[in-house]
């Protein structure tokens, strides 16, 4: 009885809160809320709704993801306005430089990959003679090969929860060809993009807020968001802007020790190589230091290597952490390592396909069983994405019919990316009060803006972060969408923004000039 009464009471309180929180304007001049309540039909008044902001999972409220955050919502609004009223803004189009989404900015897919995928989507045409006229012979052959690895050639069936075995064999062979060290298909988990694989690892690693994960600052905010969602603690380690975003093991040690003294058990180290948003490609020696550190401190090394094909400087080469570990003589018993790869980046840029994998080594069989179990709850990743991941790790070879056109497409894209990286880097560097590290790899530039005090004050007055203030102004003046540095993390008191190098090459000059004009105007307005 008492429980029932207190339930009703709390429901009424809940209703009060709910009504108060809802459109104030309805109640301001009318009947006070309490009177309203007593005049309502009594039977079972609705209480605080089950999915209201104050009753949902607070971890969800806590997490942030700036890449598709506020600035993008604003940009979409402006885009609608432009459609409805052309000429309503000082620019003709919105240029989305906020997200690593190459094909949305007119980068073309690799023809061979798409041929194979189309044939796997519609195998019924493989037997037809007309198909030979529409598709290259090696694409047809590869499609047959792949279909033969799928039971019943059924691309519409759920596969093994780690992904189709034959495709994992191909990927393992690709990893071995890349690194010179063997890979086991049973260590590979194909996922709907690399992001779900990252979430899986966070889920396994994080038991409570006492578990910490070392993350680079600046970082790709999937990590901060995932850690928040899983209730863990992000332990930041700062990349050194002055030395091209260098990663110092001494910094890792310092942050690890500080976390420990705060009662945090640090479980893993995230390294993004090539870096996002920072673009640096780690030197081998640096990587060896990181491997030693993880081994010594008993940390899982989470190696985000999705940009492994995006290296633009001749003096640097991508080396996988697996290769580095194995070449140091460290095997399964020495280091726990998870390597993430994706079909979304590189030269293939197939973001919409959601294809990727993690290679998981250095864990006991009972842990691997648990990883498999978590993967199995979702049954499997999308088959087309699985096929694409295998193609990315095993593209056309010398002698294949499509090899030359494949190379031309790939080199064309990569060399263009390198040129655009340089052009934008130079442009940013030439702006007053802006310094920009080179993009050695990945798809982004992360210039630092030294904002004048007047600008910082103006931002504070609007209750916005200074870098967000700058980015909003930039968007409103030029239609260019970039992401404020606060979305990635930065040394307090420094301001950055992340801009992709992805707009089409012929648009770059116009972007540079609009940006330069805007920046000059901004500095004129706010210069101290």
């Amino acid at each position, binding site marked *: 009885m008492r429980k029932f009464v207190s339930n009703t009471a709390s*429901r009424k309180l809940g209703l009060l809160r709910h009504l108060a929180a809802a459109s104030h304007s309805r109640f301001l001049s009318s009947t006070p809320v309490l009177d309203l309540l007593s005049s309502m039909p009594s039977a*079972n008044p*609705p209480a605080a*709704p*089950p*999915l209201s902001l104050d009753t*949902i999972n607070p971890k969800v409220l806590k*997490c942030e993801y700036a*890449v598709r955050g506020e600035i993008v919502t604003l940009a979409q609004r402006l885009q609608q306005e432009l459609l409805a009223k052309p000429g309503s803004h000082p620019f003709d189009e919105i240029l989305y430089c906020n*997200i690593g*989404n190459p*094909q*949305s900015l*007119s*980068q073309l*897919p690799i*023809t061979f990959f*798409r041929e194979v*995928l*189309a*044939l796997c*989507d*519609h195998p*019924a045409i493989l037997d037809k003679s*007309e198909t030979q006229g529409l598709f290259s012979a090696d694409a047809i052959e590869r499609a047959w090969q792949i279909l033969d690895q799928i039971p*019943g050639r*059924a*691309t*519409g*069936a*759920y596969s093994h929860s780690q992904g189709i075995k034959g495709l994992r064999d191909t990927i393992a062979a690709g990893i071995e060809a890349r690194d010179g060290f063997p890979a086991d298909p049973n260590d590979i988990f194909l996922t*709907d993009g690399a992001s779900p694989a990252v979430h899986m690892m966070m*889920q*396994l*690693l994080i*038991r409570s807020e006492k578990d910490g994960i070392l993350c680079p600052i600046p970082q790709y905010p999937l990590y901060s968001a995932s850690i928040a*969602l899983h209730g863990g603690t992000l332990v930041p380690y700062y990349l050194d802007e002055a030395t091209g975003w260098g990663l110092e093991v001494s910094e890792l040690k310092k942050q690890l020790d500080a976390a420990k003294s705060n009662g945090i058990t640090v*479980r893993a180290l995230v390294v993004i190589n090539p870096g996002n948003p920072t673009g640096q490609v780690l030197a081998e020696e640096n990587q060896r230091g990181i491997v030693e550190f*993880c081994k010594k401190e*008993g*940390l*899982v090394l989470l190696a985000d290597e999705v940009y492994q094909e995006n290296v633009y400087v001749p003096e640097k080469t991508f080396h996988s952490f697996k290769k580095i570990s194995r070449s140091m003589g460290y095997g*399964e018993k020495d280091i*726990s390592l998870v390597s993430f790869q994706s079909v*979304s980046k590189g030269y293939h*840029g197939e*973001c*919409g*396909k*959601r294809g990727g994998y993690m290679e998981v080594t*250095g864990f006991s069989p009972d*842990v691997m069983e648990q990883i498999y*179990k978590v993967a*199995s*709850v979702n*049954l*499997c990743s*999308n*088959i*087309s994405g699985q096929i694409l991941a295998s193609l990315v790790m095993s593209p056309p070879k010398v002698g294949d019919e499509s090899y030359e056109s494949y190379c031309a497409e790939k080199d064309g894209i990569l060399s263009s990316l390198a040129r655009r990286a340089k052009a934008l880097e130079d442009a940013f560097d030439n702006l007053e009060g802006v310094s920009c590290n080179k993009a050695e790899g990945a798809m982004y530039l992360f210039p630092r803006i030294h904002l004048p005090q007047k600008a910082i004050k103006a931002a504070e007055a609007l209750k916005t972060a200074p870098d967000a203030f700058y980015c909003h102004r930039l968007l409103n003046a030029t239609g260019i969408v970039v992401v404020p540095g606060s979305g990635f993390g930065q040394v307090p008191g420094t301001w950055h923004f992340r801009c992709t190098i992805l707009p089409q090459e012929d648009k770059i000059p116009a972007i540079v000039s609009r940006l330069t004009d805007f920046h000059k105007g901004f500095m004129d307005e706010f210069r101290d």
Partner: protein
Amino acid sequence: MFPKALDYESLNENVKKAQYAVRGELYLRASELQKEGKKIIFTNVGNPHALGQKPLTFPRQVVALCQAPFLLDDPNVGLLFPADAIARAKHYLTLNTGGLGAYSDSRGIPGIRKEVAEFIEKRDGYPSDPELIFLTDGASKGVMQILNIIIRGEGDGVLVPVPQYPLYSAAISLFGGSLVPYFLEETANWGLDINNLRHSVAEARSKGITVRAMVIINPGNPTGQCLSVANLREILKFCYQENLALLGDEVYQQNIYQDERPFISAKKVLMDMGPPISKELHLVSFHTVSKGYWGECGQRGGYFEMTNIPPKTVDEIYKVASISLSPNVPAQIFMGMMVNPPKPGDISYDHFVRESKGIIESLRRRARIMTDGFNSCRNVVCNFTEGAMYSFPQIRLPPRAIEAAKRAGKVPDVLYCLKLLEATGISTVPGSGFGQKEGVFHLRTTILPAEEDMPGIMASFKKFNDEFMEQYEDYRGYSRM
């Protein structure tokens, strides 16, 4: 010795606690036997194409063209693809800048969400807002997203039917919540008794659990029952009175095998009930391209529609969706075509209808064949599969069989299913994977094996079962409800 960085002891407890039998012990054993060369009939998961069901032609043509847009420029494309498939592919390519290879809107392509909204409106007779429809990489991801929003900790309970599809129990475990079971009545055709519900909620509350939401699976999995309008009204009223969100798993809405209770969506019943409940009850409805007569499991395409969810909560759900950037684009296109298939007059219409009808009518026949087949077996009682894709016969295990299982350290239905697998190659999922009343045993199989293989499969099962019962029966009696 492996490195200690992440060992079994230091794994997240919630992960260790979670179970998912559909790909658990039986499946792993079946895969082992398959590797050894034994012929296995996988009836453990609703995976139609794996058992020979062919994909519908039209959607595969359209998606293939979207994959390879350069085909559209080839003068010979018409030799391989009909004009309406070509037109539809061209249309879909305009809906997402960059085609299949670009991240779409994190909620899914607006033009396709509009198609989904139109489908829902046509189905239910009430307007549907595309802004409240989110496409997901399969319905399972959508379910996980919503449960993650709801569950704050183990003090939060979610009502789940028993037996249930173990995605729910696994997800609740993973998110650290509490599963509050409500039992379906096997003797009443797996009907839902509102008193069971009240009892479950009261019991949970007495343990200090805040019950937050209720899951219904309609048509049911593994049980197949189709809820009546009266049942749905009762459930909606109950959720409203108890301040619960309702999660309506409606992924099998195309799989209906009787005419007394056609599918009716929870949203339609809710709207029919009028205000205040129709404007206040929090409802999330799930659908997929994996089931129905499409069976496109491997695409991972699904959606959820939110009804009466506060805008700020919708924003949070959107935020979480944006972290994963976007659902896969090819599956979004499959979804568009599922809700907006070829129409009368379209070139592909006749063929599409023939293929679809063929599948649905065959499923209806197989539902009957299987139910009757199980009912002809000794100590086996099986409710008719009114909908979905499964048969969930009750196996009345003799006491000596239960004892043998205990000695082997196995749950009794697991032992039965393992022996069934070894004797016949039929790979099922033990009822314990779905939940059942204490001392009552079941197994779940699908109705998906090819129609021509059905008689052989049922004969094989009958032979095994009747021999098993012969072996273990004595006249002390046997397990029953």
